[in-house]
Structure formats: C-alpha cells, structure tokens
C-alpha cells in the first residue's frame, strides 16, 4: 500500500572543473535520469534540490533550476545536510510521495566546487565544523577523520596499511567507472614510496591516498508512487528502509571515536523499517570520503564486528566476488565528491545494481542494497535500504 519506488537515476561524468554554469551542470544529471526513467519533465510534480550552499554563488538554486529543468510551475524544495544532502533529499521525496502530496518527485543533487577560487575553498574548509569553538584552532575535514583513524588504530590495532587497502580496492573499480574523475590504478606500494604524492601526509595518520578529492557533479533520482510506477516503470526499485540521525558537531560533545554514532543509529532504524539485517544486504555503497570512513562503515553497519573491519578488507570480502561487495563503483575515493551530488550518485549505483544494469561491476542477483551517506564528520547520517 502506498509504496514508493525509484523509477530512474542519472548523473553526469564527474570532473574537476565543469565547463559550464550550475544550472547547466544540474541539467546533465537530470536529463540522464529522465532518459533512464523514460519520462519527460512534464511527468514530474515536484522537485527537491540538494547542495551545500557555501560553494554556490547562485542563491536559492532550487527556484532557478525549476525553470531551467522545465519543472515550473511545480513546487521545489531545497535541502542541505552537507555531504549527505542527496540522501536527505531522497527521504524528503519519499515523504512527499508517501503522504500523497505528490506522485512523481525529482531529487536533483549538484555541486560545482570549482565555482569559487581555491583560496575561497580553503577559507570555507576552515569553517567546516564548529566555527565558534573548534575552527579557531585551525581544523580541517581530513584532520577530524584522522582523529577517528587514530582512535581506531589505538583501540583495535588497525594500521595505515589496512586503510591503504581500501583505497587500492576503490581504484580497482574506479578504473571501470566511466563517470569517475580518478581512473588510475593505486597500489599499496605507492603509499610507502616517499617520491609518490599518494604517500604524503595530510593530517596524521591520513595520507593523500586516504582522501577523496573535490569534484563538480550532478545527480538525479526520480521517485514515484506505486500507482505511477505501474504505468512508467517495469523495473522499479523500492525504498524499503530509511534511517537518519544527527550528532553534536563539536567532538567534545561525543562519546564514540572508533565509529560514527549517526551511522549506527541510522542503520538500526533502516534495518528495522526494512525488516532485514546486515546479512541480508547483497551490495552496499558507503560514504568513503576517507579510507577510515569506509573502515568504520563496515563496523557501524554490522558487516564486521568492532575492530574487525580490517579483516573484511584484507580478506577481500568487500570486493565484487566477496561476501559483501562495497563501493564496487570506485566510491567517492575514485568518483570524486561533489558534495550535493554524492548521495544521488551512490543511490544511482545501487539502483543500477538492483536492476541488473551495472555492467562490469554487476553483483550477480543483487536483490537488496544499502546506501550509507554521511554529512560532515558524522554530524548527519543517512542509511537507505533499497530492494527490487
């Protein structure tokens, strides 16, 4: 009754510098999703636009995009939860459809991180956390995740080599993804070669190779009611579980440093709503903005016990032919991380997997998939469970 499906997904080819304006960038992901769904803009009732506005020069982009994408006079809504904006947008679209307010909703995610100069980007990065009490000490996003990495290493004996193994896996699949920015092989040896850029320290113990990079990109997810899905789509992917949580922004307000509390809480909610557990997941997309983030996700989502994430990666269990394939599209580490477009890109990969359309990275008979999308350093967390 009143189920909600995803009937089409799209994204552009993520790039370092998109040679166009933000509305043109948004059009690329949107248009790709319409083609995938086999519908037109006229079939869409409402839209949700997702981005991190500190990178945007255009104010109130939702209103601007509604016109450019051909969605006037339908209503449009803007959401922001930093890097998890896309999956927050999906949750809003689900609610709009589930409530009966709208039948077909487009979730448009975008970020043109090159819209502002690198000096401006550096300035914004300094304001990425609690600006009153943390930023005056000179904090950066990688340093926060590095603090989690340090705590994880101390508690469980996780090593920098374990983290490097996650990047090596990401690069294995990133080379196959024609929508990814970084498509070169990465080896464990690169992390120990002082001449190689990959081995340079960013924020100890994280090195350049442990970090994803900025990108420009757009994505779009088309969500529809069961009734509309019947008429539009013969391969729907159903939204079965949605979990979300928030946590104190200042690390001083937190108690857990070997995992992200928001991920654990969101996963628990999503598993319960979907009536499944970690063992039922056939394929997962997790928020690997840094290698340690994927390591913690293994444990926070229940794919591995506390401290056992290293066994999962070293045993290659998260590779395509392992027991729980994770980020076999290359992850953020390969695709790049255009903040507002990232969640939509993760959902896109999962929908293609569940429709059997993932090509070289197809997990055979994938029926249940999980998407883990984190905003800030565990400030926001969304876990979404999809099934065909």
């Amino acid at each position: 009754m009143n189920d909600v499906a995803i009937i089409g997904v799209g994204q552009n080819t993520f790039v370092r510098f998109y040679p166009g304006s933000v509305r043109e960038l948004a059009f690329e992901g949107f248009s790709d999703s319409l083609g995938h769904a086999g519908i037109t803009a006229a079939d869409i009732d409402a839209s949700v636009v997702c981005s991190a506005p500190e990178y945007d020069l255009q104010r109130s982009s939702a209103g601007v995009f509604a016109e450019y994408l051909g969605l006037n006079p339908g209503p449009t809504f803007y959401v922001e939860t930093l890097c998890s904006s896309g999956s927050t947008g999906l949750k809003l679209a689900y609610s709009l459809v589930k409530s009966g307010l709208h039948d077909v909703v487009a979730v448009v995610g975008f970020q043109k991180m090159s819209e502002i100069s690198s000096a401006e980007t550096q300035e914004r990065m300094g304001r990425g956390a609690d600006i009153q009490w943390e930023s005056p000490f000179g904090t950066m996003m990688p340093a926060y995740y590095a603090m989690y990495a340090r705590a994880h290493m101390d508690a469980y004996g996780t090593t920098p080599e374990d983290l490097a193994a996650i990047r090596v896996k990401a690069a294995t699949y990133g080379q196959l993804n024609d929508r990814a920015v970084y498509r070169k092989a990465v080896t464990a040896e690169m992390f120990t070669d002082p001449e190689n850029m990959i081995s340079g320290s960013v924020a100890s113990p994280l090195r350049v190779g442990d970090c994803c990079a900025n990108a420009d990109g757009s994505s779009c997810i088309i969500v529809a009611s069961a009734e509309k899905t019947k008429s539009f789509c013969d391969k729907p992917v159903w939204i079965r579980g949605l979990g979300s949580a928030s946590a104190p922004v200042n690390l001083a307000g937190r108690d857990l440093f070997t995992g992200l509390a928001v991920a654990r809480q969101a996963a628990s909610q999503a598993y319960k709503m979907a009536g499944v557990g970690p063992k039922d997941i056939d394929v997962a997309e997790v928020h690997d903005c840094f290698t340690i983030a994927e390591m913690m996700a293994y444990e926070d989502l229940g794919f591995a016990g506390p401290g056992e994430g290293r066994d999962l990666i070293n045993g290659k269990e998260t590779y395509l032919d392992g027991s729980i394939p994770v980020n076999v599209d290359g992850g953020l580490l390969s695709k790049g991380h255009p903040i507002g477009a990232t969640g939509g890109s993760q959902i896109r990969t999962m929908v293609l997997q569940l429709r059997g359309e993932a090509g070289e990275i197809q997990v055979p008979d994938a029926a249940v998939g999980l998407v883990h999308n984190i905003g800030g350093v565990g400030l926001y967390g969304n876990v979404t469970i999809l099934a065909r």
Partner: protein
Amino acid sequence: MGKKKEKDERFRKFGTVSFTGTTRVNDFIDHLEQGRVTGTRCESCGKAFFPPRADCCACRLSKMEWFDVQGTGRLVTYSTLAFGPKGFEGDLPYTIALVDYGEYKIFGRIAAGIAESDLVIGMTLETKTNPLADGRINYVFHKA
C-alpha cells in the same frame, strides 16, 4: 537619537583566526586573559558544559555559573596537520586533540614544542591559557 551602543566583540580574539565576534559567553575571553580556562554550569541542574554554553537545553534556563577547568584530563585522540586552512599557514605543522576530563571533554591544540611522537592516547594532560600574537589568545594542552 541615542548614542550608538558599541558591539561587544571580545570573542574576535579567540584563536589564530576567530569566525565569531559576539557570543553571550564573551566573558570566556576575559577569563583566558586572567590565565583561567572556564566552562559554565547550569545553576538549576548542575550540568557542566565545555565549551561554555549560555543556555541549558534540558532546563530551558539561561542561568549559568562559571567554573574553572582544573586538574588533568586524558588524551582521547589527536592529529597533526600538514595543511591548514586560510590564515593558519604560519602555525603549521600543529596538532589538534581532544582531552577527556570526565565530566566534560575539551577540544583544542597540543602545546607547540611537544612532538607528536611523545603523544600516547590515554596520557594525562592539563589545559593552560596561551597568549598569541597581536593580543589574541587560546588554550593548549601541556604534559601534566
């Protein structure tokens, strides 16, 4: 026309670069200048807050008393930055850290001069005020 009231922007002095001018806990800066690192305690429920808060969300009250951070805490985690945001280039490399005092935790920086190799998670540290150039001020963690 009345006289224009001057803005209380004492918090501009906090840290290498401050992104906040005015807060209702601006007295924190005066305390730093007196050599004290302080938090607030809700007068109703007794909960201690660091960083200091002007309001207790549990009691929905804004009656707070200041307390001094005293004694030692334990190092929870840390990281040394090789790159910093705009305005922090001159400080590099520096180590940010979290210290647990039991009733509250403190996010800050390890005192300059302590090598990263000397840090061990769980070690005891104390928090001291730290005057910076141009009248600015913050606090840092020292070995106890």
